């Protein structure tokens, strides 16, 4: 169940859209922020708000990589494995992240702090290899820089 205030603001968001469907991503992101991830309940709530079937919301939810349909840690690390970053040896960075965090791709650290997922291009090819942590982009990664970033992100609110 979402609080009434959130429900009202989402209804207003849907009402201001020309077609309800175009508000779907915003609604899903808000619900995800509320629950921590987009729960089954949240999919159905989004469907009710948008006038779509739960399946139609699920189609969108599972298409976008920043909508999480499973529980994630406090901050999600999206590390790029696409072509430009691959040329800049992102494999090394990904391996370093795996070792450092002690998780595989898709895994969440034991303390619930980070979830590591690969992603396909954030438009930071000029600063490859790149990743984002909790929505903050970082480029020109080296193992040392990764250490610093993770340490800083761990203590940031």
């Amino acid at each position, binding site marked *: 169940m979402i609080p009434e205030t959130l429900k009202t603001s989402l209804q207003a968001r849907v009402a201001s859209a020309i077609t309800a469907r175009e508000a779907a991503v915003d609604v899903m992101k808000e619900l995800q922020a509320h629950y921590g991830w987009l729960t*089954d309940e949240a*999919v159905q709530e989004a469907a009710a708000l948008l006038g*779509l*079937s*739960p*399946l*139609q*919301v*699920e*189609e969108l939810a*599972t*298409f976008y990589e920043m909508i999480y349909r499973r529980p994630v840690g406090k901050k999600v690390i999206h590390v790029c494995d696409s072509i430009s970053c691959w040329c800049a040896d992102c494999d090394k960075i990904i391996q370093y992240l795996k070792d450092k965090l002690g998780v595989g791709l898709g895994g969440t650290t034991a303390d619930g702090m980070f979830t590591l997922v690969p992603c396909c291009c954030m438009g930071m090819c000029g600063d490859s290899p790149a990743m984002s942590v909790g929505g903050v982009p970082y480029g020109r990664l080296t193992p040392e820089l990764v250490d610093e970033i993770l340490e800083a992100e761990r203590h940031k609110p």
Partner: protein
Amino acid sequence: MPKLIIDDIPVEVAPGTSVLEAARSVGITIPHFCYHPALAIAAACRLCAVKLLDGPVKGIQMSCALPAQDGMVVSTTDPEALKMRALVIEWLMLNHPHDCPVCDEGGECLLQDFTIAGGHSRRRYQGKKRTFQNQYLGEGIHHEMNRCIECYRCVRFYRDYAGGTDFGVMGSAGRVYFGRFQEGPLESPFSGNLVDICPTGVFTDKTGRFRARYWDYQFAPSICQHCSVGCNTSPQNFQRETIKIVGRRNDQVNGWFICDRARFDKSYLNDPQRPREPRLDGATCGYDVAVDAAAKSIAEFVRKNGADKLALVGSTRLSLEGMILLAQLAEVAGGAKVCYFDDAGQQQGSLAAAKLLHEENAAYVKDIEQAQWISLHALDLMEEGPMLALAVRKAFLAGAQIFLVAGDMLPAMKVLPFKYTAVETLDQVPFEGGGKGVIICGAGSKDPDLLAEMASSGAKLVMLQPGPNGFAAALLAQQHAAVPLAELVAARQVQGVVCFEADVPEMLLSDLEVLANADWRRGAVEAKAPIFLPTTTWAESDGTAINYEGRAQRFERSRVAGLPLKGLDPKYYGSATEAVSLHPPRVHRKDVPGGAERDAWQVMAQLIERLGGEALEPFSGKWRALRNLDPEGEGVRIFEMGLGE
């Protein structure tokens, strides 16, 4: 009209025709998966590659998405195109399991056919295949996602064509998954078409899995007998059992698809409890003995009470042949009454519709699809003619306005695959002079004045009949001035009845003597009839049906009558003298167990002969034109033959 050359064959096609269809028109099948004539173009599978050697575009192109243009020179056999198709099929097969031997689609699988056609016979890929969890999708359809080749046919049909919202495609890239949000029965009443439309075995018919292979089936062109739309089907039979029913294309009636009732509602055909033995006074007897007894009983009754006290009762379930012979039989019996309806309201509405409709005002399916407005008059479309809902949806998607007049908001209305405006009377439907409008209503139990009012609107008309062959019943009832049984009973004009596939309610029978009953299903009549004559269903007989728009369509016997071999009672093959194991059958017999059934019209013909008459070929006189109706054709609207009013 674009002129092009395909594999050295000059082809001329209508503008907008794809190269794939142009090739098909001269007998060249270009392999394809995602392309389906009834669906929008996706160009998702990349299998239909051809090479254009000359003309406005050159090089490798997808033939399904390429409109034929003047001057094109197309090669389907160019080495480059062949190579492309071979590689495409190989990559489509990467994740496909090697499970054909345990897949129900095996033998009728487009993927098998085109894999072979594409020349892919040896797997090079050594990696892991992606796998999925299947979902429970209800009792009709089995889900096997691992077999999916991502052609998107299912979702294009289910969502775009049929308007369902509970099935779709999730995920992205190599993880796309076709299914529901949560497990559960598919909601669309057209979900069964996923079985036909999937080019491989992701969706198979759960009601007939693992019973037989395609080459084991006996087929025949058939007509669905569930409602008066008359969709074309093809029952697949194996060892006297209807295993599956699939849709058969007829662009004038159902297009490519059928509803779930037509596909899945078939257990009554195979029911071991179906009455199959002729009976006389409760005891099983030979068929001719039963016919003799029935003829004698009719003759005696007529002698004692007069022919006008006897009614021969048919129904809208009878084939047209049966309906015609019923009237002949009544005549031979000395002028007995003949009933095609038992309910007065149904006959009145049905007859009125048959009288009102003619070639100009009876809507073709195309008229519905291309209408500017459609008015549904107090009917439950999903019950009375589900396939027409898809035609209405086409019009709706093209911008037509849909109205529901005087609807009592039946619960089923909620699942209609289009939006509509509810109004109270036809006057509130805003149209001028009818132009490109269609009124759809159920004819049964409607006031003839109301139907006439609709007809006077200038719109095209769809008047759905109260039974599968209701239009024919109306024509015959009119020709022979038939009175519904309920009226005859109320006026005490009959004392005895002979029933032919008639579902007479028990209350009508209470004061009547039932001389004989011919039917393939159980009912109230059966208990009262001393003579029982088992008849064949539409699956086991040849016949003709006339649908709601007056279209006469021939269906063919798709299998012999008799009990299905599966589950056959050992009494049919065991020896009376020695105990034998149940399998295999030890005692051979020439007759088919439970196969004594005869077509209703043949039973009537035999009765006519026993009563001293001469049974005429059903299609003689004015019906003669229906003699050579092609069961694989589109049927013929009877108005064209001057058979309508």
